[in-house]
């Protein structure tokens, strides 16, 4: 009988820890005694076998968090489990939130002044779900006993509870500081969460507290901003009404994580503020102040109409860039040759050319958006960072220029096959001329395009398409206008012998473009790669000779095609195997240091202004600006007088740090000229087309005291 009683008692006595399938669970109460009228920190600790996990309060797409049910003596109560910052647990197409290896869920024990029973038996029923490939629900009964005393004796603790709590009890998300402001706005696919932290944030991950609001597996696109960040979140497909608040945990870099409840609407302050309005310079005023005189800093959200208009204008201007003009001339030539044709034929040519440009832009944008959603940070001009692409482009233009110069006729062998093919060649030719115009236009980021592209790539897909469509239409407009407005064809000169001369003359700017491409390639990848390209040109010239010497013969066309294939192979092989280490362009001039974020901070902490030239060897306007405005004697003197530190960020080959910095400045292409003024959090941006006067004006506007004691007043320009 006694034996049975004893056995029963033993069975009833739970301990404070238990081993279960794939985990060890423990009730953690560090205090050796509970003080009446006080409270005590406590926790629920799980140690998990490798690969097994338990879940956050919102487990995500599958899973359930652990729960506790208490049996407590009178006067003692336990608060709810608190959840530390979780990890993302992807599972195939699902996304869960939880913990691996070990986790401690803190909670508070409150002891009323009237609490009597000593010792207090704290009894809990815990149940959980632990999963790896399969899920195993588990439960345990845990018990801890602590005396209740009247005196506070905080010093005495119990092991291993105290060590466990000290190590794992401080991983809860914090309340955000009062300076933080958050808000969210609906977007086409979900929400844009904006957080203002007064510094640029480059890492963020949002864990929603409420289920069925967000699409958990969707990637969260982070846009760092000068004073914080925005995070694009995809909503649950079945969300019918937007929530009033986005609640959850936002994890930033360096282990910071905050429990936020972002209300609908943009936060009160701006997340990329105008220069001159920082917390340091504002004493009593609100965070917003009048916009600064600098017109180059992108305003928070320019109207869509204005941006689309600017994009159209940018496209028009692109026609004037040396990258595009030769192609326009080519088509103008063809147009003049067909000046006597039917009006509708001309119109169709114009439409097909426009279609070629539109489709190329759309394909490019679709690829960009696809890559963007994959998390890459790529900007306009990125394809020129590939040496293979550069070589192929140079070869293509060389081939074209040879034909214009008269070595051979393109399409002759095809037209001999029949009249229908000639017509086909015409439309297909127009279409692919449009495509060519886009490919070659890309690295010439015209002045107005910078803002439009920077804006559009941060917007949802539909807006990006609208902006790029406007860009494409602007690019296509001049030629399309010529074909659509029949009257204007009369303005064009009548066909004649001069056309052949013009054709040969046009080959000159195309050859010039080829030289430029070759120079870019040589600059970035070395003389060996240039030599390989020149060998490629020889191959092309030989192919052209075949086409010219034996025109319209199948066998000669085949030989020429084979030689061209050889050129393609050479272009693909050479850059990878012959490239020399890229010489940094800063080696050219001792005054300019290579850029890095740390260097900028270092000079800023010394109180010096910093001028950063974001450039690339393939960026023509960058090269022009450098020669015209940045390296002239007067400008160099102005820089020296103002004690400006000069840094050059070379983006010729894709550099992640530079790409991120460009994005944080609201741009995604080069050139960008940033002047960091001491005392201002974000830099002043200069226009994309520089003159010495613009640079010296900007230096003159530096605040007194930012430069050396003797401020030289420049009487320049």
């Amino acid at each position: 009988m006694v034996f049975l009683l004893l056995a029963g008692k033993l069975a009833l006595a739970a301990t404070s820890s238990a081993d279960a399938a794939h985990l060890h669970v423990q009730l953690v109460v560090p205090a050796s005694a509970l003080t009446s009228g006080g409270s005590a920190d406590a926790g629920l600790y799980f140690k998990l076998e490798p690969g097994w996990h338990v879940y956050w309060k919102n487990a995500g797409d599958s899973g359930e968090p652990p729960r506790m049910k208490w049996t407590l003596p009178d006067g003692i109560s336990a608060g709810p489990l608190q959840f530390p910052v979780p990890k993302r647990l992807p599972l195939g197409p699902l996304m869960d939130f939880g913990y691996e290896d070990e986790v401690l869920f803190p909670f508070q024990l409150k002891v009323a002044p009237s609490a009597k029973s000593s010792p207090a038996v704290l009894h809990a029923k815990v149940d959980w779900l632990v999963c790896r490939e399969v899920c195993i629900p588990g439960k345990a009964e845990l018990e801890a006993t602590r005396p209740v005393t009247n005196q506070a004796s905080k010093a005495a603790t119990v092991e291993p509870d105290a060590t466990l709590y000290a190590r794992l009890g401080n991983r809860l998300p914090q309340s955000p500081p009062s300076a933080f402001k958050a808000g969210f706005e609906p977007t086409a696919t979900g929400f844009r969460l904006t957080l203002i932290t007064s510094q640029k944030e480059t890492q963020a991950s949002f864990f929603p507290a409420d289920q069925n609001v967000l699409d958990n597996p969707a990637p969260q696109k982070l846009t760092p901003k000068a004073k914080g960040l925005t995070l694009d979140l995809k909503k649950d497909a079945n969300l019918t009404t937007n929530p009033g608040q986005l609640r959850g945990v936002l994890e930033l870099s360096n282990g910071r994580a905050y429990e936020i409840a972002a209300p609908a609407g943009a936060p009160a302050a701006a997340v990329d503020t105008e220069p001159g309005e920082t917390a340091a310079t504002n004493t009593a005023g609100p965070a917003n102040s009048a916009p600064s005189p600098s017109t180059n800093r992108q305003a928070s959200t320019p109207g869509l109409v204005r941006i689309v208009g600017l994009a159209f204008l940018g496209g028009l201007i692109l026609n004037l860039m040396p990258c595009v003009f030769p192609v326009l001339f080519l088509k103008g030539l063809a147009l003049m040759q067909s000046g006597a044709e039917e009006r509708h034929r001309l119109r169709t040519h114009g439409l097909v050319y426009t279609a070629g440009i539109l489709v190329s832009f759309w394909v490019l944008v679709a690829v960009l958006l696809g890559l963007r959603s994959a998390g890459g940070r790529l900007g306009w001009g990125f394809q020129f960072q590939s040496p293979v692409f550069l070589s192929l482009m140079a070869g293509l233009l060389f081939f074209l220029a040879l034909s214009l110069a008269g070595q051979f006729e393109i399409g002759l062998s095809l037209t001999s096959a029949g009249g229908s093919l000639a017509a086909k060649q015409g439309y297909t030719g127009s279409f692919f001329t449009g495509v060519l115009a886009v490919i070659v236009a890309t690295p010439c980021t015209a002045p107005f395009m910078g803002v439009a592209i920077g804006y559009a790539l941060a917007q949802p897909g539909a807006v990006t398409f609208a902006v790029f469509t406007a860009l494409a239409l602007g690019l296509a407009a001049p030629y399309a206008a010529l074909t659509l407005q029949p009257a204007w064809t009369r303005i064009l000169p009548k066909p004649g012998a001069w056309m052949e001369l013009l054709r040969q003359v046009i080959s000159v700017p195309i050859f010039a473009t080829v030289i430029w491409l070759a120079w870019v390639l040589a600059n970035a990848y070395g003389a060996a790669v240039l030599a390989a390209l020149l060998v490629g040109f020889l191959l092309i010239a030989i192919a052209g000779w075949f086409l010219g010497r034996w025109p319209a013969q199948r066998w000669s066309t085949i030989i020429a095609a084979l030689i061209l294939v050889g050129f393609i192979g050479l272009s693909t092989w050479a850059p990878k195997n012959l490239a020399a280490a890229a010489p940094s362009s800063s080696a050219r001039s001792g005054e300019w240091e290579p850029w890095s974020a740390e260097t900028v901070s270092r000079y800023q902490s010394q109180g010096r202004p910093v001028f950063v030239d974001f450039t690339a060897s393939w960026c023509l306007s960058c090269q022009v600006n450098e020669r015209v405005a940045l390296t002239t004697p007067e400008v160099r003197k102005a820089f020296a007088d103002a004690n400006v530190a000069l840094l050059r960020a070379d983006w010729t080959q894709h550099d992640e740090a530079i790409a991120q910095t460009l994005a944080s400045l609201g741009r995604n292409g080069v050139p960008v000229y940033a002047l960091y003024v001491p005392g201002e959090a974000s830099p002043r941006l200069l226009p994309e087309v520089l003159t010495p006067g613009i640079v010296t004006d900007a230096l003159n506007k530096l605040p007194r005291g930012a430069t050396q004691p003797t401020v030289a007043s420049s009487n320049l320009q």
Partner: protein
Amino acid sequence: MAARSRLASSSFFAVTLLIAASLSVGTQAQSIRVGSPAPDFTATDSQGRTQSLNQYRAKYVVLEWHNQGCPYTRKHYVSGNMQNLQKEWTAKGVVWFTVISSAPGAQGYVTPPQENAYLAQMHAAPTAVLLDSDGKVGRLYNAKTTPQMFVIDPQGKVIYAGAIDDKPTPDTDDIRGADNYVTDALTAAMAGKPIATSYTRSYGCSIKYRD
């Protein structure tokens, strides 16, 4: 001739547009929206027959994602709850598909004879059990857990998607007091009434898709 080339250009144009448009939508699986048409599928059942959703136009269809090893599924089978639902609703003309999307070698995967033996042992009465080991149907519906339920009306619209009931536990005790969302949806729809809860977060084990 000119017309043909124009057609060729414009079809190239259209195809590129479609590709571009689909790329712009994103790279994740499409979610099922309650109220939108249920995507059609074809699958082989445990009796070797080919089943497709469109065969059952003009009928209510219930899709039940299943994994016999998952504790949450076992809760509804060991207690007889799921079998009762199947009998009750198939008697009223509802087509009930149990879908198994576990990859070969993963928990829940069964061969046809194994599944038929399980059905007999559990006295389960679905219209058919679809063996979806390559996960096509699961991914088409973005099914996440077992159990997960979809109810489709005779017009082919999804009218309920989510959990089987409102008690996300593995305890059979929690069945009796639970609000069964499938019963609610079918009862309301058959009476011509609006469905109170048409979308919930499903609970259960994650579906063990093939990689």
